[in-house]
């Protein structure tokens, strides 16, 4: 099947197998390395991307379902050589350790602030419930989201 979509501001058109998962399309066909496969079952959130403005898990969607969509991945967040405020906050607050969950975690964090620019810690924590991190205990991630909110991300 032929699909046309926009990824990080660039148009892509490919002929894909109907069963090709979106995460594999992004990684294997388009050549991205940011979205990661952590569980294949949408439980860990390492594959989180933004699809038409919403954070979604790309490991349990077919590429063909994204036909016509506008996708933003971690690679598309920085603009004009400047990190997105959420990326900057994750760096400043030590929100990443091994880094494997980080791209998905940043995309989910961005969504939290897109929906609610001034979340409480409780709201931040519940907003991250779909993303697992085994390294940080989440505290520095919560700090990062809070710092990004303060910076007006």
């Amino acid at each position: 099947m032929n699909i046309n979509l926009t990824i990080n501001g660039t148009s892509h058109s490919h002929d894909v197998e109907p069963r090709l998962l979106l995460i594999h399309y992004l990684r294997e066909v388009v050549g991205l390395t940011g979205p990661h496969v952590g569980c294949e079952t949408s439980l860990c959130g390492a594959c989180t991307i933004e699809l038409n403005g919403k954070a979604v898990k790309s490991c349990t969607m077919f590429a063909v379902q994204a036909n016509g969509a506008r996708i933003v991945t971690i690679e598309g967040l920085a603009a004009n050589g400047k990190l997105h405020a959420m990326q900057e906050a994750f760096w400043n607050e030590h929100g990443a350790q091994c880094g494997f969950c980080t791209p998905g975690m940043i995309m989910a964090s961005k969504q939290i602030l897109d929906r609610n620019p001034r979340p409480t810690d409780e709201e931040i924590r519940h907003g991250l419930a779909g993303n697992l991190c085994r390294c940080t205990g989440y505290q520095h991630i919560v700090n990062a989201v809070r710092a990004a909110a303060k910076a007006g991300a």
Partner: protein
Amino acid sequence: MATTTTKPETLVGKRIRRREDPRLITGSATYVEDIKMPGMHYAVIVRSPHAAAKIRSIDTKKAAAAKSVVAVFTGKDTEGVGPVPCGASLPDLRVPHHHILATDRVYFVGHPVAVVVATDRYLARDAADLVEVDYQVLPAVADPEKALAKGAPAVHPEWPDNIAFNFHQDGGDYAKAAAEADVVVKQRITSQRLIPTAMETRGVVAEWRAADRQLNLYSSTQIPHLLRTLLAMMLGLEENRLRVVTPEVGGGFGSKLNVYAEEALMGFVAMKINKPVKWIETRRENFLTTIHGRGHVDYYEIAAKNDGTILGIKLKIIQDLGAYHQLLTPAIPTLSVLMMPGLYRTKNITADVVGVFTNCVPTDAYRGAGRPEATHGIERMVDILAAKLNMDPAEIRLKNFVLNEEFPFPTATGLIYDSGDYAAPLKKALGIVDYRKLRMEQAESRKQGKLMGIGIATYGEICAFGPSPATPAGGWESATVKIDPSGKVTVLTGASPHGQGEETTFAQIAADELGVDIDDILVLHGDTAIVQYGIGTFGSRGTAVGGTAVYFALQDLKAKIKKYGAMLLGSDDVSFSGGQVTCNKTGSTKSLQEIAGATYRAMQLPPNTEPGLQATTFWEPPNFTFPFGAHIVITDVERDTGAISIRRYVAVDDCGNILNPLIVDGQVHGGVAQGIGQALWEQAVYDDNGQLLTGELTDYVLPKAHMMPWIESSHTITPSPVNPLGVKGIGEAGTIGCSPAVVNSVVDALSPLGVQHIDMPMTPEKIWKLVKGGAA
């Protein structure tokens, strides 16, 4: 031309953000799965659905004929590959031969039976389903105590008792201590099987360059050099023809401190098909086949005087080993024995360990590796003793701590605790929670029928593995520091960090020692073709051993810089600081850049000095380090649901000097999260047939952001005398101090109901039954 900038301020001890982060926060880091090569093939492994079975036959014809498949290999094909190694040695240890693919029998669910190799990853998976294995299912045993019972199925038919080893250790005279005691308390305490669950599963890419006789193997591992040595042996390949590369590693926690069948299998496949091959473990495979942690059933006895003085400790450990020994499997419970006295002065211990085979995936090192079990046991026992004697749990600990003037302190188990002020973190933590007031509040809340708990745990841990005679594979670490002709600095560390931030902390050390800007320093690791032989990152050793190696390499380099500087300045009276050598008489200077250039140009050499500016150190630590601390947890238990909520979590950790507080905080938080996970939710559950019931993230409960309390982390600082950095290690402290603090808190909450002990995980169901008066 680039210049080396000098820098007056020091960086060690500063809260600076990490240098490895830009690639992580932009999604440009390279994990194994990100490696692509022309002609890449994909491997899918066929695994046993049974915990114990004979393999009658394997039919690979259909799979081999499937679209895109280039090869299918079974155990018969790989018989020439050496066994998966066990690096631990114990007297009379029974070591089952561990083939990389099962030959005539399978021993656990997930046991690899065949591998399908195809040009397309989806078609490889399809074809794996076409491999037909005829199994004769046998009875299995998945519980270590059941495996010890008479008539239990034999995991390995040659050893019908299922016992892999017995280990005994005495210190002092426990029998005499027990005879002199006013009170002896006993308790059975378990530390359940846990699944490490690094967010990146394991993965391997292997590439055979036949013309060069060169195997390049990329693996998500904590130990690239040890892996190379052992894989070369398994594959029958000269070690210098094997290059192991550890790209970005998405978490390890001990689970990648190993040598796995799949690593050798991918090397074998690449050499057979003469093409690059990739295998990425699925999460389901990760749960079934990557090592698990813990798996203890402990029987404790503690003998004491009526005033709370601990006279001795007796311990029997039944260790669930699983079906095989992985790299360190049998050694892990012996670490529990070493640390069984905790922070206490008692010189009388007796310990027995029985290592038991079960039809489960092997257990091995998981964050803390033997020390969380020991700490959990002794800290639970001290609370049980305090309750028996009607003493305050803080008071009984303070009464039994090793005293400051007793360091270096020889323990009942033969260790030498390096330095400590064990009362300091406990007193600090008690101050933070305002302990006396808190107990009054608890008394009030109990009058209203509320279940509020205050849990204290203190811990000591053994870190910085370690002196080589006490470790299976060498306990030193290596570092090379080289300065280019242009004055830029590269640090090559044999430690292989994977999230611990050593690209930053080691750069801080180098920046301070050389007096140059941190941006002039690059830290490299994890490639056996680039980095000198090293041991790796585990056991909270990265900074204490690897960082110290960097420090000593820098001292050698500084001496050489001074020599060259003195020659260029024409003076013997020089000093080196701020990135330049200064003549103390004239004040004239030579920059590091000028000196570096001169060492390579080598127009003139100082006496007995080689050209170039590079130094390598292999640093052997004289002792382990022993971090310690106190955690206090305040919990509220809901009567109607059994739900536990953590109101406050206070951690006071003493890890010696702190090189970067931001990174240390992160290590504490992550460690505590894994401790809380064990205390409250996590458990690998096998049914009686050896089927893993918690085989997915849906069933195995990991802590999520909203399930974690805010962690109030602070420190006391007692430098270690073992290394010049004065550091002790912080990677595992949070996990070790955590689980007993949480359990002590919940037992304290339920103590008005007569509850004396609760085994982990303390699920709401278990707590609800206890509140209602049922058995836990």
